[in-house]
């Protein structure tokens, strides 16, 4: 396969984060350029997320970085990786974030900047709740995250 922009760019990103990974982020696996997993912790002492680690899964299409990656939280028993409690994170791990949609995405964003945005999204949150309609959404949704047309409630959370 020819070296596409996606693989070139991801190999450079990978080289950079294996070199120095920012605080609160751990690369779990990145065996190829289609799917990576990263563990994330919140840096400040937000009581909602104290002593918890969350796992993020990235899926890249060959249009990356022109197209945003698909990013979800995944849950695991061992080691314990819960889905963070947040009014914009559904209990199945799907994240409602402008940055990850077609309109909010910019190709200058990258894996690290997404992680940092998610960290600050958790840091700034004080509500111990799920999005409105979470149960119904989780029960019925069959769409891939990037095909869902989220209504971005507000950009501040």
């Amino acid at each position: 396969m020819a070296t596409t922009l996606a693989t070139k760019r991801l190999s450079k990103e990978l080289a950079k984060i294996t070199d120095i990974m920012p605080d609160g982020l751990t690369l779990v696996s990145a065996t190829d350029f289609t799917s990576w997993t990263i563990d994330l912790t919140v840096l400040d002492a937000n009581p909602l997320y104290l002593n918890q680690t969350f796992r993020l899964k990235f899926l890249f299409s060959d249009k990356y970085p022109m197209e945003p990656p698909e990013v979800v939280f995944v849950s695991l028993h061992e080691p314990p990786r819960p889905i963070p409690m947040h009014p914009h994170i559904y209990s199945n791990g799907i994240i409602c974030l402008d940055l990850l949609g077609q309109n909010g995405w910019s190709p200058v964003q990258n894996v690290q900047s997404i992680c940092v945005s998610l960290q600050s999204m958790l840091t700034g949150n004080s509500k111990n709740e799920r999005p409105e309609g979470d149960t119904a959404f989780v029960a019925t949704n069959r769409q891939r995250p990037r095909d869902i047309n989220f209504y971005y409630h507000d950009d501040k959370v």
Partner: protein
Amino acid sequence: MDSDDEYMSGLSSEGEDNILQDESDEEGSDGDDFGFEDDEEPEPDLGYSQKDSVKKEKKSFDINFKVYHPADIQTQQDELINEVNMILDIRKEDAAILLRHFRWNKERLIEDYMDRPNKVLESAGLGPSTSGLQLESIMGFTCDICYEDDGTQTFAMKCGHRYCVDCYKQYLGQKIIEEGEAARIQCPNDGCKRIMDSKSLDLLVTADLQQRYHEILTRTFVEDKDHLKWCPAPDCQNAIECGIKKKDLDKVVPTVACDCKHRFCFGCGIPDHQPAPCDLVKKWLKKCADDSETANWISANTKECPKCGSTIEKNGGCNHMTCRKCKNEFCWMCMGIWSEHGTSWYNCNRFEEKSGSEARDAQAKSRISLERYLHYYNRYANHELSAKLDKDLYQKTEKKMIQLQTASGMSWIEVQYLNTASQALQTCRQTLKWTYAFAFYLARNNLTIMFEDNQKDLEMAVEALSEMFEKPVTELADAKLKVDIMDKTSYCNKRRVILLADTADNLANGVWSWGISF
């Protein structure tokens, strides 16, 4: 000027004149080469009354409209862009972006720009400029998209955010091809609102992508303008301009005809539904969809002869049925005796309301209202079905006519009367179909009775023409029948015009009274 006026928005003054008064000037898509001289139009009354007397007679239910072909649409955009370019003294690319930002409302753009140019530029994504537009190779530059620093060609719009040309190409390809975006492509930088202009785009991408970009821009132009609509016919690339106001749709049914022959309502986009106004049509279609189970049986193509019970199949549009077995002649619609249909006292089209005594309890009332609905629905659906059957029949006839041409020596021109007749049948049945939806909502009064008389006249004429069509081909070639068909065709068209003109006048004057609101 009231910028929210729905009628004026986005419409240049000379365009408006064309819509309202100048339907005879078909050529040259406005031809306003002299942008500034439009204020010196000839005195309206002198100019137009003269013109009106020569141009072809306009029916009261006809609406003025204009068909635009793809090149005309481009010309219209270019003219607006040139005008703004001159008046505001800004680059054409920027004028285009500003016009799109203002949804092609030139007047409002100029007014706002005169007031606060910087605010307008900022909000349209044309913020402060820092550099010129050219491809550059810069030493030590690292692209924020691909992270390469190999000294390749780079580009930046006036916001100064610089990326390599390859990244730009991929970015624009994603936006144009994958996301169908054109008018509002922003700078790739996160949060930068700078809009990609066509000059920069032409510098960056290949010709086929440029073409696609301009196609999408043209689309946006038509979609942005209140008085332009795409012709909904599949594969048709024309747009129609019509100055009808939304608030007038209860008084006018704006049927327009594209050059591709497709006739549709400019108000709601569905095929021609004169004489029924848009709101009535919407309500009726919803009712039909909701009650589809009740009325389902009508679509059946077979019924039993009311006299001997043998199965009769309908294979043409005509409602005059003759049972092969017992020779009983009856009406497919009401199953009544056919010979009575021409008489003044027989009403196949009118729903006879039962006297009040019968409808005392709620159950009886609801039964009667269902019967009434089915009366109109069946006739509505039947004309739809008949139009289709007439068309099928014509196609069969057409084939045979070709054989006949070779056998009898008749020329292609000489058989065209059948084509004309077939067109008339289609159009008249389309009208008749909607007269039944219309009648369903009417209250019973003298006006309604006159309407039903017109409806009956047209219907009888149409059935007679339709019946002539069912004749075997050998008879169709007969000179006498040919004359009959031609006479009947023009009679049908005349009856249709009478019905539509009457109905449209009453609608415009607001004198119909409705039994059921819509």
